[in-house]
C-alpha cells in the first residue's frame, strides 16, 4: 500500500521541521511553507516520513494511506 503526505495548511505554521527531517522529499517555498509532492512516498523514505509527521509541532503533516490523494 502506498503512502502519501499531505499538509493541513490551516494548521501548518511554517516551522520547517518536516523539510529538515525529509529534505529528499519536502522542500520549502519562499515563505517557509512545505511543498509536498503528491506522489507516493518512496519506500525507503516511509520511515522518515512518518517520523516527520510525528515531529510536526502542530500535527499539520499527515500520512495518507491508500490510493486516494
Amino acid at each position: 500500500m502506498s503512502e502519501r503526505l499531505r499538509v493541513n495548511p490551516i494548521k501548518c505554521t511554517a516551522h520547517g521541521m518536516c523539510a529538515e527531517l525529509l529534505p529528499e522529499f519536502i522542500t520549502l517555498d519562499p515563505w517557509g511553507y512545505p511543498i509536498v509532492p503528491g506522489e507516493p512516498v518512496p519506500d525507503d523514505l516511509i520511515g522518515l516520513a512518518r517520523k516527520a509527521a510525528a515531529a510536526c509541532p502542530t500535527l499539520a503533516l499527515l500520512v495518507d494511506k491508500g490510493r486516494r490523494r
Partner: protein
Amino acid sequence: MTVVATTRRQAYPARPAARLPRLLAGLVGGRPAGLNQHESSFGPLPLPEAAWSGNEAAGRRAATRLIDVVERSGLTGRGGAGFPTGRKLRSVAAGPGPAVVVANGSEGEPASRKDRLLLSRTPHLVLDGISLAAFAIGATEAYLVVHDDDARLVAGLEAAVQAREVAGIDQVPIQVVGIEGRYVASEQTAIVQHLNGGPGLPTFAPPRTHERGVAGRPTAVNNVETLAHLAMIARYGHTWFREAGTPSAPGTTLVTVSGAIARPGVSEIELGAPIGEVLMQAGGPAERPQAVLVGGYFGTWLPAEEAWRVSMSHPGLRSVGGAMGAGILVVLPESSCGLAETARVVRYLADEGAGQCGPCIFGLPALADALADLAYHGGRGDAVDRIAGLIPLIEGRGACRHPDGATQLAASALAAFSHDARWHDVEGPCYGVRRAPLLPVPGDLESW
C-alpha cells in the same frame, strides 16, 4: 409528465412547451412571485404522497426514485464546480442518521447576479427545491444561506418561508440564515463551520461536508439555482429536462452578462449555446470586444474571437482550459487593459482570503503585486516571469480552492493577453490602464 403523485391533487400547469425560459418563466411583472403566483406558474410542491403517509419504507422508496430522476436528468451544480447533483444527494442520503440540506444563496462573486434574481423574484421555486432535496436525502434540518447585509432579501425570504408554514407546505422547516459578505464565507465548509457556531471560514477536509457537516451530520450543500432546477425536474421529469441543452450538458442555466454589452443582466440559456450567441442575445457588444471573462473571478479570459465559438458548458469550456464557474460573462472592450483588470481582481481576491493558509496569505499578495507591477509599472522585463513562477507555488496549496481560482485567472490573463503582457513588461503600461475599471470589485462604485 409529473414524476411523483402529489398530496394536494391540484392540476399541474401543462409542462412548459418552449425550451426557454424555464426558471425565469416565473418572473412576472417585476415583483417577487408570491405563493399563489408561483403555484399558478409551476403547480404545487411535488412532494410524493408517501412523504406524508408515515409509511417509512414507502417514503424511502419515493426518495430514492426522486434521486434517480435527478441523476438521470444529468443536473450538475450551478455554484461553480459543476458536480453531479444526483450523485451528491445519493452519497448524503447513504450517510448515517438524519441529514442536513443547505441552500447556498450567498453569491459571493461580484460579477454574478443570478442567485439574487432567483431569490428575490421567484423564491418559492428555490424553497420547493430545498424541500425536495430535504425529502430526497432524509433531512431533518434545512437552511437557506444568504448575505446578511441584504436586509430586504432576508426579510422577503423570511416572509416567503412564513407563507409556506401557514399553508403547511414544507415537511422540514426552512431556516433563513445570514452570513457575512466575505468572498470565502460562501465556500461550503465555511458555511458549515458558521452554522456550527464557529467562524465563517473554510476548514480542512477531511471530514468532508457530505460525510460530516452541520452538527456532524451528512450535509448536502447546493447552490440555490441547482435547487430551482431540481424543483423543475421533480415536476416535469428528466426527459423533459434533457430536451434543452446537449447530451453531455443537459438543461438550461442562468448567466450574468456584464461589461461592454448592450443589455447587461441575467438571462437563461440552453447549456452548450455558443458564447457569441449568448452575448448577441444580450444585445451584442457595446464596444469592439477584446476578450471575454468566462466563469467569474475564478474564471478564464478568452480572446473575443475564440470565446465567440466556445460552447457555454462544462465540457465546452474545459476543452479550452476554462470553466463555467457560476455562469458569468464579462465583455472586455478593446480600450480596456486586461492586465490591469486582472491585477485589480487578484488584489481583491488576495484581500478576501481567510488568512489561514501560508500559500494564500503570502502567495496571493505576491501574485497581486507582480500583476500590478506588470499592469501599471512594467518596463523592467521581469514581471511575466515572476507571475509564471508564483503560480505553481500557490496552486493547490490552500485548504480551500480560493487561491486556485486566483491563479487560474492570472494564468489565463498571461495567455489571452500574451502580446500585451510582453509589451507592458518591456515598454511599460499601455493607454488602457487609464480607463475606468470594468470588473466590479466591492468597495468600488457599483457599475450596474
